[in-house]
């Protein structure tokens, strides 16, 4: 009823990628302050992404003819795990590598593959994803942005919001309406690649509660889209997006968003020689949960590796994983505020405060808690 979650090890070929990448990261990331590393896949560092691309750590699951490494999802798991474990700032290539690349590979034309995939594999092309619109949020099907046919392409008008990293991105892959009205819901939607340097595109970054600018609003005013910017079939946008969401919900980034804080707190316990029962028990509890979540994440990865689309399994992982990630700052804050005799370092505090502020966003990315649990309930046969 619940799919299969089988404990399994990572293949040796995947594990072999770990040590050299770790060496590279020690050099390029190790020196960053912990509160910078806490941003991890929200942290933007173009030079790191290019370094990773040059070293062959991007486009992992893409075929070699497009500059990829032709490796399996397990290899990708190892790479992502190593990047997140140290909190590498990977935002520049994150979305392209995880979602846009696979999407173009599966649904794009041969010309599109040749045009975009090599740049993605090199870490040179930054993509963002245009889903949410004002007043729509998780209701992705209520899209109002609209592309009208012209002789040799399309003219796009509308607006996207909460687009991660649009202000840095070269391209957006956007879900827009090509026929019907918002009342038609998932019918009549299509996906386009949009060059964000096109005339008529305006990007306005959104400052977030932590003072960073991770999101943006994007406005389209008579933006011309050539025929070859359509991805997949006209009107098939919804099905394509659904496939993409399974990728979005299944990676190790769904369990590791607070791991930099957990490590920093553990270092604080050691530095202060703390062995008290509450702190020790909390450390053990979080470690046990994360060990189990990691095994669940690998089990979901195995479904991807087998060519399946583990929608329910990925939703279970994501709801569990984001719940865990969100609990960590609240629990560690309570521990630190119960030890006023200790001087927690400014870097630890900044890491804690940053994650406290941003934790609510963990369960937004890729669907709210209620939506995920609805998918799980459907998997249980209740809907």
């Amino acid at each position, binding site marked *: 009823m619940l799919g299969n979650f089988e404990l399994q090890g990572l293949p040796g070929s995947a594990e072999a990628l770990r040590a050299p990448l770790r060496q590279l990261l020690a050099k390029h990331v190790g020196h960053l302050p912990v509160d910078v590393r806490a941003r991890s896949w929200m942290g933007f560092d173009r030079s790191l992404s290019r370094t990773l691309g040059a070293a062959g750590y991007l486009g992992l699951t893409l075929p070699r003819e497009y500059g990829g490494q032709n490796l399996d999802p397990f290899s990708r798991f190892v790479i992502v795990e190593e990047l997140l474990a140290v909190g590498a700032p990977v935002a520049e290539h994150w979305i392209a590598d995880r979602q846009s690349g696979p999407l173009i590979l599966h649904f794009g034309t041969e010309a599109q593959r040749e045009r975009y995939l090599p740049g993605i594999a090199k870490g040179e092309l930054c993509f963002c994803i245009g889903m*949410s619109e004002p*007043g*729509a*949020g*998780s*209701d992705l099907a*209520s899209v109002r942005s609209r592309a009208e046919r012209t002789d040799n392409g399309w003219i796009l008008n509308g607006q996207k*919001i*909460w687009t991660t990293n649009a202000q840095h991105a070269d391209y957006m892959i956007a879900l827009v309406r090509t026929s019907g009205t918002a009342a038609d819901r998932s019918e009549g939607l299509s996906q386009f690649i949009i060059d964000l340097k096109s005339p008529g595109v305006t990007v306005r970054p*959104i*400052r*977030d*509660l*932590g*003072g960073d600018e991770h*999101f943006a609003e994007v406005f389209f005013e008579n933006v011309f889209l050539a025929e070859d910017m359509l991805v997949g079939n006209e009107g098939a946008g919804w099905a394509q997006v659904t496939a993409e969401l399974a990728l979005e919900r299944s990676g190790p980034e769904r369990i590791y968003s607070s791991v930099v804080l957990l490590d920093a707190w553990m270092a604080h316990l050691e530095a202060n020689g703390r062995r008290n029962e*509450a702190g020790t028990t909390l450390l053990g509890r979080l470690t046990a949960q994360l060990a189990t979540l990691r095994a669940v994440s690998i089990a979901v990865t195995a479904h991807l590796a087998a060519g399946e689309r583990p929608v329910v399994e990925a939703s279970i992982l994501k709801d569990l994983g984001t719940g865990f990630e*969100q609990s960590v700052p*609240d629990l560690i*804050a*309570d*521990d*630190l*505020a*119960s030890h*006023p*005799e*200790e*001087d927690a370092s*400014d870097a630890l*505090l*900044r890491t*804690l*405060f*940053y994650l*406290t*502020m*941003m*934790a*609510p*966003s963990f*369960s*937004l990315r890729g669907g*709210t*808690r*209620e939506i995920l*649990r609805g998918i799980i309930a459907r998997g249980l046969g209740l809907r």
Partner: protein
Amino acid sequence: MDDLVLDHFRKLLEDVCSPNEIRAVENGGSTAVMWTAFQDSGFLDALIPEADGGAGLGLADVAPLFLELGAHAVPLPVAETMIGRALLGKASITSPSGPLALADLTLSRSALVLFADQATHVLADLGDRAALFEMAGFEATVPDSRGWCGARLRIRTDAVPVAELGQPRPGLRAIGAVACAAQIAGATRRVLDMSVAYAGERVQFGKPIGKQQAVQQNLAVMAEHVVMAGMATQIGCADGLDPTLEAAAVAKQVASAAAAAVADIAHAIHGAIGISEEYDLQLLTRRLHALRLAHGSESWWAKALGVARLEQGSTSTVDYIRAIGAV
């Protein structure tokens, strides 16, 4: 509290402490205008006896004002100054005119002190006595002005107090915790109001999200936390400026637990908009997290209360809780 007085205070906060004014302060702007308004209002002396020129109110009387401070996310130690002035007044010490922070230095020479970045003076508990210091008596650093509204203060070895007073029992942390609990109670109530309003307006899948049963259930849970924080605060305020450790523990344990829960549910309901800087929810939820930690979080106070209860020994639970915050 007289409704007219409370309305007057609310009006003052709306005038000088709007969301945009809070943002200006958080971005490094001056609090001088804001502080002058509080000073001129007379509210800072609310807890001073009438004979000494104050309003002669008790802590339970002014608790509604503390709630308003929380509900408006006032970025200044107004409650703390009111308390500090009353404690100094009792010891016949003249209070400074500037903002006063409350610091517990009984366990370490350094502490994270709420609103200390906006204070000119610090009333510090040194364990054997309390003492008033100018800010110059401390090295002050601000670890993260957005993440936590206050400063880390480290007392200088050569710091000379402006004045000394006896040891407050059970310590300044207790009354500081009660002041935080009250601000949490006010902020959670405001966050509930915002969340209910948002759920009623925000349409998704063709209807307001507030019509979804799951959202309604979450808002009901939020409301329960608000009720708990409000009641625990009243218990904390019942004993006046010298709360028992037990009353302070109930107040801050319950309020701190509510603070995190309410902030988390509110953000879950608001979704992405709640994350944006320009939406006001974050002014309150960031404050809730800061207030939760200041003067001891829920586990600190739970442990303190458990220790106190085991020391007293063998009373039934009902008798033990009857004695806490009895009015």
